[in-house]
């Protein structure tokens, strides 16, 4: 049985600015209104994640994109998990690998193969705290 309450571990951090704290729970310093952090459909908070890596994307589109870009394409199993990723990631701008310690995604590879039940994701947090990108990755994915 999957433990949805398993603790999220920060596997790797690459902080670009440790002088500011941003994201949910901290003062909004970006343009316009504060985004709805707890809503996975918030384009302002979660940018291109839903369109390119969301749970509802069809396998053929991800397979096709992996092949055409010659690059792994991760897909989330549950859209709510990128909200959890934002909540758990360090509150500084930067790039992070998080391990949910439970399956949160799958990764389509350029050669047509698929890795199921990946537990890790990479996210990039903008200077205003929003997530520029976020997708599941295999364990061998590194950020430095």
């Amino acid at each position, binding site marked *: 049985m999957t433990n949805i309450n398993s603790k999220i571990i920060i596997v790797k951090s690459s902080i670009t600015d440790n002088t500011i704290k941003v994201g949910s729970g901290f003062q909004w310093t970006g343009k*316009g*209104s504060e*985004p*709805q952090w707890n*809503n996975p*459909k*918030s*384009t*302002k908070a979660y*940018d*291109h994640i*839903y*369109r*390119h890596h969301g749970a509802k*994307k069809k396998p053929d*589109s*991800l397979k*096709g*994109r992996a092949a*055409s*870009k*010659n*690059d*792994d394409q991760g897909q989330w199993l549950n859209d709510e998990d990128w909200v959890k990723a934002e909540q758990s990631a360090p509150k500084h701008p930067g*790039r992070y690998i998080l391990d949910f310690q439970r399956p949160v995604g799958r990764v389509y590879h350029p050669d047509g193969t698929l890795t199921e039940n990946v537990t890790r994701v*990479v996210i*990039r947090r903008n200077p205003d705290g929003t997530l*520029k*990108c976020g997708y599941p*990755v*295999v364990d*061998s*994915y*590194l*950020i*430095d």
Partner: protein
Amino acid sequence: MNKLQKFRIYYEEDNFVSYADPPEDPLKELSAFEMGLRNFCFECDRRFFIEVGDRTIQLFFDPDLCMILEDGLPEQIFNLSQGKEIEISIDESDQVIIKLVPVGQEIICTLRYFGLRCEEKKLELDKNQVLAELKRFLYQVMEMAVSQGYMKPADKDEFLTPVLGNDVKTGMVVRS
């Protein structure tokens, strides 16, 4: 022997079918300009390439160019022209950070790859050549977005203000 490498950005002319879903803004958070930019990059999606010396980075208008523009490319170009270092971060179609550090009339470019390969490459570039190429590409894609009806000329000009002001003075760009 000239140690300076060439920096080039260009796109393919042909569109192709994108695998992504069309841009949406269900919570109505984005401005007309921001949605216009996303729709432009999605509907006019094509490959574009950043060539640095012997390295070629293959990217796509959707989402890579969209993300680079949203990261504030005009401000970054202005900062580079003022002698400040900048980073162009690619996270989707490739995983690489292009770091440009001006040193006099040259730029030390570091390509730092991450993801499934961690590797770093340093190259020396001509500062004026890099700036001219970045501006040329930026103006070209923004003009395309306006001419195809994805944004108003005034919104484009406002977006380009950080880099446009100086170029209008020097005659490089004619305001629309």
